[in-house]
């Protein structure tokens, strides 16, 4: 009996001792990610890095991204984050990670040697995890993440289907797009598909037109509560979706369609146009290698302001500020984003590299995607974002318009009501 009790006590003490032991520097780095399609290439590169430097990088995959996201948050709460990881959440959550001391400020490394590392990467991609002076999150200005690739969302068109409907060139304006949709319908081709069952893609398309119709300042003023969603410009944005519905542009079931299904529909030539991100090149290649398609930005509806597409870092890694291997982790990420490694990543995974020099390694279609990068925008680089509850109401409202359930005016009023409620709530709690 005494022996049993002693063993139990020893086990408890051993556990406590293990818990309190601070992590020691080592030659092994741990990297967590969520990208199933990049696992093999990342492992291959990690092996190459080990042979070169003697530092082992354990590349650990946790998919799908929703589960990964929850895992990272749980690990942050338990303070067991790895040396290198990615934060897939909104910028406000990234700010919370930084405030909790879980992310290293990479600015000194990026700026070293006249900013060689920083300048080799797309500015828009770096901005994803950067904070400007006076940012609304209260974070010390700096660069906190390393993008390993970039992505943007644009419109794709099937050249064969367009030719079948007698359309020679892809549309340049929204009106052209509607006309093309009629021509396509006439020959029995579904004009447009997108995975709008995933609300962020719907949000992305809407914000493209919001920027085009009213300019970014007015969009941000709406987030600040200075402009109402019932404003005529916002009604025009909602009206874009009403026009898509009324003109029979959309594939049936588009509002509940996951992006995987939408990708399948476009790859199997069931729709002439699609709205998708640059990762689709890899997907379409696997689904239908003979698919002949091109890339255009969504056709603008107004000349008032430029139509800005969403483009940013595809996948960004951060370095755990509490890791004893911080410097080694930074050195590995520097190596991973250098031209040669970026070319390997781009070639093998068909993603746009974050290193500007490596763009030559990509396919012509990806090069077309990359043209939009410099003029792109993204919620992660905006000075502020809309309240997530309002965003959700906005996206649900767009869905309601797309199925003909509500008018733009009704949706505008409902979204504004949610906005007012949220602002009142925040003021009350403040």
């Amino acid at each position, binding site marked *: *009996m005494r022996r*049993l*009790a002693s063993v*139990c006590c020893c086990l408890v003490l051993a556990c406590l001792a293990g818990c309190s032991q601070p992590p020691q520097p080592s030659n092994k780095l741990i990297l967590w990610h969520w990208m199933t399609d990049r696992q093999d290439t990342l492992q291959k590169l990690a092996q190459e890095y080990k042979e070169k430097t003697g530092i082992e990088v354990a590349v650990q995959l946790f998919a799908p991204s*929703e589960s990964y*996201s929850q895992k990272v*948050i749980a690990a*942050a*709460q338990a303070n067991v984050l790895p040396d290198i990881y990615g934060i897939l*959440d*909104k910028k*406000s*959550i990234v*700010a*919370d*990670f930084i*405030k*909790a001391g879980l992310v290293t400020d990479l600015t000194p490394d990026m700026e070293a040697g006249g900013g060689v590392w920083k300048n080799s990467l797309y500015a828009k991609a770096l901005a994803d995890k950067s904070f400007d002076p006076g940012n609304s999150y209260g974070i010390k200005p700096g660069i906190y993440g390393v993008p390993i690739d970039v992505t943007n969302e644009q419109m794709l068109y099937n050249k064969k289907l367009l030719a079948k409907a007698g359309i020679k060139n892809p549309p340049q304006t929204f009106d052209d797009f509607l006309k093309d949709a009629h021509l396509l319908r006439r020959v*029995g081709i*579904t004009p447009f598909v997108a*995975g709008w*069952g*995933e*609300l962020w893609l719907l949000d992305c398309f809407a914000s493209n037109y919001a920027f085009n119709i009213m300019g970014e300042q007015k969009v941000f003023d709406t987030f600040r509560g200075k402009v109402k969603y019932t404003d005529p410009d916002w009604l025009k944005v909602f009206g874009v979706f009403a026009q898509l519905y009324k003109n029979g542009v959309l*594939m*049936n*079931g*588009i*509002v*509940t*369609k*996951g992006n995987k*299904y939408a990708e399948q*529909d476009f790859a*199997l030539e*069931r729709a002439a146009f699609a709205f998708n991100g640059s990762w689709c090149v890899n997907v379409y290649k696997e689904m239908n290698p003979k698919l002949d398609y091109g890339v255009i930005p969504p056709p603008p509806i107004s000349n008032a302001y430029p139509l800005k597409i969403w483009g940013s870092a595809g996948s960004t890694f951060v370095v755990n500020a509490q890791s004893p291997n911080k410097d080694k982790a930074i050195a590995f990420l520097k190596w991973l984003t250098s031209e040669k490694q970026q070319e390997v990543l781009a070639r093998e995974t068909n993603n746009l590299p974050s290193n500007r020099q490596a763009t030559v390694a990509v396919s012509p279609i990806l090069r077309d995607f990359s043209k939009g990068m410099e003029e792109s925008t993204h919620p992660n680089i905006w000075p502020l974002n809309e309240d*997530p*509850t309002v965003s*959700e109401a906005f996206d*649900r409202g767009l*869905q*309601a318009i797309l*199925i003909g*359930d509500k008018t733009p005016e009704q949706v505008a009023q409902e979204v504004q009501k949610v906005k007012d409620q949220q602002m009142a*709530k925040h003021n009350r*709690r403040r």
Partner: protein
Amino acid sequence: MKLKSNGALALKNNFQNFLFVLPAFAIFCIFYIYPFYKMINLSFYDWRGIGPMHFIGLSNYQELMHDHLWWNSIWHAGYITLIALTFQNALAFFLAMACDREIRLKRFYRVVFFIPPVLSEVVVGLIWNWILNPETQNGQYIGLLNHLLYASGFPQMVHDWLADPATALSTIAIVNSWKGFGWGFIIMLAGLQTIDKQLYEAAKIDGAGTWKTFTNVTVPMMLPVILVVMILTILGCMQVFVLILAMVNEGLVNYTDVPVTRIFSAMQNTNQFGYACAEAVIFGMILVCISFITKKLSDKVKHA
């Protein structure tokens, strides 16, 4: 002195017993009691999952009381449950009765009827997404259901089942019943096989027909089993989640929201962990109430 040594012995024995229970007790506390406590605790905070937590008392609950989308989601789950309680369980009962008789291939049917419940909800969602696909290619409907409706002379019935507010929830409810009826079928079949055959013979001798035998022998004998199936159906259907995600992704506007999708959305999309916990607490209380009522009902039936 002897008393003292007896007391020490009892203490020693109790300590020994406690040591044996300790691992199970520790696991129970860590994985059940603590998360439960933490969930209730978090429901009083404004928290985004990381960063500072702000105590806001009952504000999350107050907000929840006025959140019509939340109460609609409860109604949606109730509707799915109602379809399951009626359509799914009636189907399970009658198929179980059919398979309880001496019919050809009854073993085969038993296996076939039990396939849907053992399939993953994601797989079921994918299969039904294909069956319900409303799109056409080269003039042909891609989805099996619309294709069959069109080919069998009912083109007016061809429909976008999951993207129409009038049909989306019912479609999900029917698919959910299709997936779930196998459990009820197996339990009811087991229940039917426990009914003493002599009761049927006695009823026959007394001149009871098929309907009378069914209402006076089968149904009363099966009532406890039916109640068990009902409780399991209610608890299972109220928590439906993966199937909805697999069929309509983030949902059709708010027409396909159920409590678990609302909780998930509050955590995943809007980072309102405190609010999500308040939703989970209220939902848990509703489920406890339902279980309590059905338990009382079950006890009443047993005593009757």
